[in-house]
């Protein structure tokens, strides 16, 4: 920091004390030459103490602040850059001509502000391009090259502004504290007598401008030397069309110079000179092209009536609210519009197969589907289709008989009998054939040989419907057989009862049989004794006394069950339950005192006497009862011993 300030001090000291060598002297320059140098600095970096740049170089340099107070608290990198005074010194080429890319920085703002060596102080109101505004006070200072002013008193300046902004060109304010300076030895620009050189103008400064570049030629007359556009007369003010793709642009010729360009196309118009005189905008609605004379008349556009006048002007002429703008059929452009719905001439086209309405002044012919006559006497039901008459089916000669050949001859039907196979349309016949103009076939067989069905054919399918009534099931031991659900069901068995109680009656092959046999024995209680009865005994009952402690219950002594196996030992042991009932699930009695069929119990052992009808003798029954009781008591005693 201190070193930098010391360097700055040295810079100021040198500027104040150093006298340029006597031989150094600026060359005369024009203001334009100064500006040409000045503008090359734009984009280069600010370089405190720097003063060299190379126009066109891509490396512009970089200034980086190292403190808050601006340079000299900054660093610079890159080969090019300048500070404000280095820049102006180079643009002014003081105090001697020096290449821009060669470092030379002889003056600071202190010099430019406080001295007048190769520059002079001028009034601020007299400042021109290439002059400078400078300020220096209290060690701070700035200088910039003036280019031009603006309406507010701001100025366009070239300047190396500072570390952050670099060397720039732009509008800026100028404090009233700045002073104006002008370089000495400013050369007045060369002078020429204005004249034409071919297509080029040469002005008083000897600057040459080729008019051909702007499609013009050089003209020298009482108005001076100037470019005159090929579109313009040399003098006077008039409007002309200018070429463009859309034919809409125009401009004003002012003594040969094109000014104030405009575009008719923005309003949907052509630029045209077809009417003679200066160019005018004519509506594209009123003329087909820029070279077409506009047509007067009305037209419709977006429902509005627009009126073209003879000059191509376009104005809206509203139609009454209830009569909207309508375009005449087949027409467009001017003269095509009317207010309200336009009428039609006779729209009938003589075609019965079209409807012929008038829509907005236009006849329309709409195909219909009306009946019509195609002119053929043998067709009937002719109908319109696609605007033409389509023949209907042949006039009604078809008699529907496949065994006749039908024809229409001169509007009369003929029917000629045919032979051969045919189809009578009945699926329940077969082998249909024509005979004498009639189609018939043989019935299809459907008998199923079941006496209990009614057989028939329906739509070619055999069906059997169950019937009622008597039938024969083929079993001679039944009588009164009858049909049920399509099958013959056996009737009642033929009666073979011979009236004998103890014979077994039967029927075999339609004949009755009679054989002897037992009847079941029934047991019941009579008091404390068991009463046994058998039909075969003629209803005689036998009483069997029971022990005193086991009176008869349910037809048994003590009401207890007994195991028939005790009488007819089975192949295995029977098991009793704790309550003594039989394990086979047979009922133990209903306790009602009614008789229990003993044969039911006996039959449950599987080896009973069902086929045998032999009656037990009285002694055997008694023995059976007693043996059963004894065995039962023994078994119960054993169960108690085992704690069951």
């Amino acid at each position, binding site marked *: 920091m201190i070193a*930098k300030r*010391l*360097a700055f*001090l*040295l810079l*100021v*000291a*040198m500027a*104040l*004390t*150093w006298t340029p060598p006597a031989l150094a002297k600026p060359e005369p320059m024009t203001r334009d030459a100064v500006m040409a140098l000045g503008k090359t600095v734009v984009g280069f970096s*600010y*370089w*405190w*103490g720097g003063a060299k740049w190379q126009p066109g170089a891509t490396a512009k340099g970089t200034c980086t602040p190292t*403190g*808050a*107070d*601006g*340079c*000299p608290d*900054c*660093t*610079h990198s890159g080969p090019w850059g300048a500070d*404000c005074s*280095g820049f102006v010194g180079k643009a002014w080429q003081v105090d001697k001509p020096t290449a821009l890319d060669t470092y030379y*920085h002889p003056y*600071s703002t202190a010099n430019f502000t406080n001295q007048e060596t190769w520059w002079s*102080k001028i*009034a*601020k109101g007299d400042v021109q391009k290439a002059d400078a505004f400078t*300020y220096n*006070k*209290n*060690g*701070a*200072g*700035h200088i910039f090259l003036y280019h031009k002013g*603006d*309406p*507010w*008193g*701001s100025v*366009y300046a070239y300047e*190396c502004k*500072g*570390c*952050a*902004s*670099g060397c*720039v*060109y*732009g*509008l800026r*304010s100028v*404090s*009233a*504290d*700045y*002073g104006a300076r002008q370089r000495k030895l400013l050369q007045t620009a060369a002078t020429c007598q204005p004249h034409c050189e071919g297509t080029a103008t040469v002005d008083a400064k000897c600057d040459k401008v080729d008019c051909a570049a702007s499609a013009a030629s050089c003209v020298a007359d009482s108005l001076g030397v100037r470019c005159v556009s090929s579109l313009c007369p040399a003098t006077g003010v008039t409007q002309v069309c200018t070429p463009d793709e859309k034919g809409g642009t125009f401009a004003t010729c002012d003594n040969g110079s094109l000014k104030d360009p405009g575009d008719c196309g923005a309003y949907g118009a052509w630029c045209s000179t077809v009417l003679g005189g200066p160019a005018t905008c004519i509506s594209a609605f009123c003329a087909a092209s820029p070279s077409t004379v506009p047509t007067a008349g009305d037209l419709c556009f977006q429902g509005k009536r627009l009126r073209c006048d003879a000059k191509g002007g376009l104005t809206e002429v509203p139609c009454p609210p209830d009569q909207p703008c309508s375009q005449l059929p087949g027409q467009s452009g001017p003269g095509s519009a009317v207010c309200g719905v336009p009428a039609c001439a006779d729209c009938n086209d003589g075609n019965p197969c079209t409807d012929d309405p008038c829509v907005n002044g236009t006849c329309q012919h709409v195909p219909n589907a009306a009946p019509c006559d195609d002119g053929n006497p043998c067709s009937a039901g002719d109908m319109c289709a696609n605007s033409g008459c389509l023949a209907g089916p042949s006039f009604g000669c078809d008699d529907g008989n496949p065994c006749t050949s039908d024809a229409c001859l001169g509007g009369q039907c003929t029917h000629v009998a045919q032979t051969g196979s045919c189809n009578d349309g009945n699926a329940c016949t077969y082998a249909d054939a024509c005979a004498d103009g009639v189609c018939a076939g043989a019935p299809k067989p459907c008998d199923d040989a079941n006496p209990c069905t009614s057989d028939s054919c329906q739509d070619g399918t055999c069906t059997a419907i169950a019937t009622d009534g008597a039938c024969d099931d083929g079993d001679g031991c039944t009588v009164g057989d009858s049909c049920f659900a399509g099958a013959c069901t056996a009737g009642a068995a033929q009666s073979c009862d011979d009236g004998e109680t103890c014979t077994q009656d039967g029927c075999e092959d339609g004949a009755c049989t009679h054989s002897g046999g037992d009847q079941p024995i029934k047991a019941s209680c009579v008091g404390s004794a068991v009463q046994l009865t058998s039909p075969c005994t003629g209803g005689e009952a036998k009483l069997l006394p029971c022990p005193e402690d086991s009176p008869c219950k349910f037809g048994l002594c003590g009401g207890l069950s007994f195991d028939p196996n005790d009488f007819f030992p089975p192949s295995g042991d029977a098991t009793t339950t704790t309550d003594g009932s039989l394990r086979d699930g047979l009922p133990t009695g209903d306790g009602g005192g009614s008789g229990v069929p003993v044969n039911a119990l006996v039959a449950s052992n599987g080896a009973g006497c069902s086929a045998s009808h032999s009656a037990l003798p009285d002694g055997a029954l008694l023995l059976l009862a007693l043996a059963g009781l004894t065995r039962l008591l023994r078994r119960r005693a054993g169960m108690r011993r085992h704690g069951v």
Partner: protein
Amino acid sequence: MAAPAFGTRRLHWVLALVTGLALASCQPRASVPSQTPPTTNVGAPAASVHGPSATPTLGPGAATIAAKPTPALASQGAWHRSWVADLPWGAAPGQAGRRWAAEQNPEAPMALDVAPDGAVWLLDQVNGRVQRLRVATDGGVTQLGSVQVSATSQDLALTPTDGLWLLDRFVSKSARLVDAATGVTRADVALSGSGIAEPGAVSALWQRGDGLWVEVEHATLVRVSNSAGVPDPVRPLLPGRVAPGGQRAVKALRVPPNRVVLQALALPHRPQTAPKWVADLKLPLPIWAIADVSFDATGRTWVVVDLARFVPGEDAPVERGRMAVAVDATGREVQRLTLCPPIGPEEQFRTARIGGDGALYSMCRGESGLRIERWAP
């Protein structure tokens, strides 16, 4: 940093000695004003600076003009100065950065804008920030916030959506839209294309209801984007500065020695309704530059002009001033205000304007700080 090529180290010592003697025998050398190093104040707590204790003083040879109103405008009219805030030079909250240095452009705050709530947004680009300030009627300044911005910013404009446009003509060559609270960039709109011959020609930013307009050469407005920063492909143009509501446009022309002319223009989309008038305003001192043209809530057009009178042979003016003149909707002058004049070499960009609250704000520089004045009915 590159030092000038002055020869050998021995020569430097000799020159330094000679220079020191020369300076000692001539005049005292003024030093560059000291400055507090800038600091970043994003998110810093609000700080208050009460004033006006540091009234700017005039530089040598300069004097504030006395008001020279016309008899019809004997008073400052219905407008009065509602507060004066003096911000010392420095980098602390509520202070303003100034940079004077050798061989470079001297700078101080270049622009300000004022929100509808009266908060002053000060472009303190030397400190790389925009300060949001609240000024009390006694001149007390409270920094409400601060966002970091580029040191090459030159103008600013507030948006209705908490955005802040910043003009950087020379480095980014863009109008940058940042979040007014955080400084985060939302969009960058290039200062180029149709209507803008070059970035350096831009003379102001205008945030209008339909987008961002940049002013070129104090003469033409070009809409370059919508309010969100989406570039405008149409680039419509408007002449001059446009009054709120688009009733008219006004162009200002500096006419030396002592006149300013305001010209009301028809806008292209309202050719029939816009008033057409010219106000030729005579000023009590030679006009130096026009500082601002803007519009208040009653439809008045205000022009702020900097005035300076010189004598031959002197660079600094012998008399200077700043004046605001208002004309009504018909171009008739209705108000004049004498404002504090800018002193010093610093470049300024937008140092006066009608704020979003309808008051007139003007700032001027002095030896010890920056003064901001508020004028209101």
